[in-house]
């Protein structure tokens, strides 16, 4: 029964068009919501951490404490534990910037009135992943030398020589293509899917609660609304976790490039 009601043209489910909001002005096609949100995230980050370190005190204010908490989480939990205590310090600013930037942009997804994750446009994760690609390869080349770096990447010690022609292409493709690709797709797909999920439940609940007279559907709409709220909290977890995973894998790749050959 509900199938009929929902497919008779009253309810339009969200589609992929939802992640491509039209630009604000027809003449300026690049000025759209994702662009503004990403710019805003930089302002938010600079403002927040600027305020957090403005007047550092031995007994920190709540703001300073929060800022230091996030910083030490990235520094120790991601940087030191993964890269290793010998080399991690020069990469902390990069990891910290990555983590906080992605975190703020992901949290837009569940922020009321914004509720849009810019990372659901694959261009944004892709650029971040390209930066990561350049960083860990350049770090590895500088640390070990060009020939040594690729030798260490492509030739695992302790394997019979005839295996190298088979395994080396896989290794090379992994570090040059697959790693940044999976990094970008992981973030993009999670945010895109999460956004779609929330849209389906929220618009569905709204439609069934408000537009439909059928009491059974109203009850279903109530349930859908509850699920939408539950999913919002789940997306909060996803948003934080994906920022963490992105920074963590970046640290992992950098650690591999720095520590190889020791």
């Amino acid at each position, binding site marked *: 029964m509900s199938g009929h009601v929902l497919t008779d043209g009253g309810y339009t489910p969200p589609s992929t068009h939802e992640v491509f909001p039209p630009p604000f002005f027809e003449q300026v096609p690049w000025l759209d919501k994702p662009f503004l949100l990403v710019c805003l995230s930089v302002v938010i980050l600079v403002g927040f951490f600027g305020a957090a370190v403005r007047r550092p005190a031995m007994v920190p204010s709540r703001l300073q404490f929060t800022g230091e908490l996030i910083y030490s989480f990235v520094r120790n939990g991601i940087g030191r534990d993964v890269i290793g205590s*010998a080399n991690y310090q020069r990469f902390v600013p990069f990891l910290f910037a990555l983590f906080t930037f992605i975190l703020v942009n992901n949290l837009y997804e569940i922020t009321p009135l914004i509720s849009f994750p810019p990372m659901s446009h694959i261009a944004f994760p892709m650029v971040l992943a390209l930066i990561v690609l350049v960083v860990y390869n350049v770090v590895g080349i500088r640390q070990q030398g060009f020939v040594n770096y690729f030798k260490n990447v492509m030739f695992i010690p302790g394997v019979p020589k005839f295996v190298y022609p088979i395994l080396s292409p*896989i290794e090379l493709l992994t570090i040059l293509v697959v790693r940044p690709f999976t990094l970008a797709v992981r973030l993009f797909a999670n945010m895109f899917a999460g956004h779609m999920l929330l849209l389906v439940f929220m618009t569905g609940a709204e439609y069934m609660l408000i537009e439909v007279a059928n009491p059974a559907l109203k009850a279903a709409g109530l349930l859908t609304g509850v699920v939408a709220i539950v999913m919002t909290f789940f997306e909060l977890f996803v948003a934080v976790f994906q920022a963490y995973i992105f920074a963590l894998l970046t640290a992992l790749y950098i650690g591999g490039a720095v520590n190889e050959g020791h």
Partner: protein
Amino acid sequence: MVHAGLPTKGSGTGSAPSDHGGVGGYILAGLIIFGGLGAWLDRSLGLSFLTPLGLVLGAVLGSYLVYLRVFRTTVEPETHPRSGPGTGHEGESE
């Protein structure tokens, strides 16, 4: 230092994420290379069984690389008297 491309299992938080990033990446790369090779050979030779064969081979080789890169190195530090499994990063992980 541990000479793994990915941290060893003993390196604190490195365990689960190294599986996450390493396993998927190597296997995917193996699938792309050998599946692609099979597809190309299939097309140029007019055959049809080389693509699935290449995909299986790629997955197997990718898994082998995961074993070499991620799991084999967990045994190695134990043979070193200097560094046990937990001290891959100077023991600061915990």
